[in-house]
């Protein structure tokens, strides 16, 4: 046993430095002799981050999600190979030349996973933006005008929500024909109703709010009232919902591609890569890496959404 471990505590120079700093802080926090008030200690940079973002999950999720977004943005620059270039040696296991191995056509799996980030994350974000916009507009109109407008829009959302999401999306994508654009369109049709419903209920409670009434008394028309008084108060919670939805959307789009209803070969997309891997079950590297990519994207964006929700609504915060 070393000398230091035997005599731990304040004698060590590190310990005394810490103690001195703590005492300096304490000294600063003594009450002011004139006012008798204790000055508020300046928050450290770390403590300025909202508590919901300081949990280990949120930190890891932020790093992972940020990394994926960077990869999606600069993908081609860091990919070691052209994701479409075919090598004469298919089914190489992970190794020095191709760290994730090669697929049945000898394409570099690592480069394809990186290239797939742009497709999967990019389209997921695009889809979420579109369904948020459509859902918010329809939900606001339904909640604000009420009566038959509300009935029509809400029965339509009921209609869409009555079907299982994935199955309805499959039907629509199949009817439209397999392409990435059609897959996004199909996913849009099934994902806007949840926004419409949530926004509608928020608008219903806002519609009776005093500041909305006083705007109407000042002669606001419906459009102005919605734009100025209602929508700004709906945007925050809706954005939280959208951020929670990015992971799910990426999964839905990849699912459609997996079923052959989205991305067409040879374009690199995680879902279609996994579906190709199913044909060669013994070549584990074909499916594992795009699968892991999808998994980390879904989980990290979900935790990010949770943290965002907690910072908007401190009441639901986990300790």
């Amino acid at each position: 046993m070393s000398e230091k471990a035997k005599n731990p505590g304040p004698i060590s120079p590190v310990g005394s430095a810490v103690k001195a700093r703590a005492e300096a802080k304490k000294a600063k926090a003594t009450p002011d002799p004139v006012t008798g008030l204790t000055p508020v200690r300046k928050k450290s940079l770390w403590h300025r981050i909202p508590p919901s973002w300081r949990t280990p999950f949120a930190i890891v999720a932020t790093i992972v999600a940020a990394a994926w977004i960077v990869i999606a943005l600069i993908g081609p620059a860091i990919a070691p190979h052209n994701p479409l270039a075919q090598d004469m040696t298919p089914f190489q296991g992970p190794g020095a030349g191709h760290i994730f191995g090669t697929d049945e056509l000898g394409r570099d799996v690592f480069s394809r996973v990186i290239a797939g980030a742009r497709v999967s994350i990019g389209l997921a974000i695009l889809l979420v933006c579109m369904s948020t916009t459509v859902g918010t507009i329809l939900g606001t109109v339904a909640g604000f005008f009420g009566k038959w407008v509300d009935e029509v829009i809400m029965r339509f959302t009921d209609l869409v929500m009555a079907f299982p999401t994935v199955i309805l999306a499959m039907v629509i994508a199949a009817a439209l024909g397999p392409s990435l654009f059609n897959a996004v369109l199909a996913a849009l049709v099934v994902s806007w109703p949840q926004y419409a419903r949530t926004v509608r209920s928020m608008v219903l409670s806002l519609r009776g709010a005093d500041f909305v009434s006083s705007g109407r008394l000042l002669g606001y028309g419906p459009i102005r009232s919605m734009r100025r008084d209602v929508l700004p108060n709906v945007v925050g919670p809706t954005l939280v919902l959208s951020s929670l939805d990015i992971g799910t959307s990426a999964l839905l789009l990849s699912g459609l591609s997996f079923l052959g209803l989205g991305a067409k070969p040879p374009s690199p997309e995680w879902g279609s890569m996994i579906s190709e891997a199913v044909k060669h079950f013994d070549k584990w590297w074909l499916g594992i890496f795009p699968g892991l990519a999808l998994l980390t994207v879904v989980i990290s964006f979900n935790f990010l959404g949770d943290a965002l929700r907690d910072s908007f609504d401190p009441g639901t915060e986990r300790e």
Partner: protein
Amino acid sequence: MTEPAKATGAEPILEVRDIVVDYPGHPPVRAVDGVSFELYPGEVVGLVGESGCGKSTMARVITGLLKPTKGEVLYRGEPLPPLTARRRSPKYTGIQMVFQDPSSSLNPRRRVGSQVEDGLQAARARAAYETEEGGVAVGAGVKELTASQWLQRIGLSAQAAGRYPQSFSGGQRQRIATARALAARPSLLVGDEPISALDASTQARVAGLMCQLALEQGTSLLFISHDLSIVRLIADRIIVMYAGRVVERGRTDQVWNDPRHPYTKALLGAIPAPDGSGRMPVATPTGTVYPRDEISH
């Protein structure tokens, strides 16, 4: 105290006739049961009564936010159309209201300056409309203030315009809401318990400011409150409501000094006396049912 304008023979700015409001239910709740009164230009009327007596319902009916089950509201001699999803014509933006809850009377997502600016815009829109119609807008001779001037007028700094409502206290917010309503140069301002959520030291100040600013530009004020001791400081006339009906009305000094209706007497008895003895005010006996017929002076 000024004589009620009724004596001068002026046209009332607002007349409510036999208003009945039923809230749906089994059986329906009759919140207001045949209330009539009128309001003259430049007059301050206090509408008092305990909670649940139908005061706030009356405020919503008068402003058109609520359609009465029966009865009519006449604004400048014409029926006031209830507020629908459509834009309210500038003709009727001369009725403004300050709401009870300071936490929701202003939009939390907009700077207060631009919210006061909305009031100014409404005033401009109505002035343009009334010039077109050949009438004269209320406060036409009064110089138009900017939003920050309005904020200074209610005792805030000009920099307040750039802040959001969250950075103001309840009393400050109610003053800002008053400024916005009055910036629209209304002929009638309805204050629906605007001070009930404020602490005692702020109440008189906000009520007094509201009254003073309204009178300066010739706006009539209908001040709704449960607190007779504040109302008597600003009102020319007092209307006492009980269980959906008017039970007593008269000049403030008459009602204050010589209450006729047993309910008014009970209300006056319930005002705490600041004698320092810590004596509790006389509680209005629970379960007492007062006659609902009006006793006039």
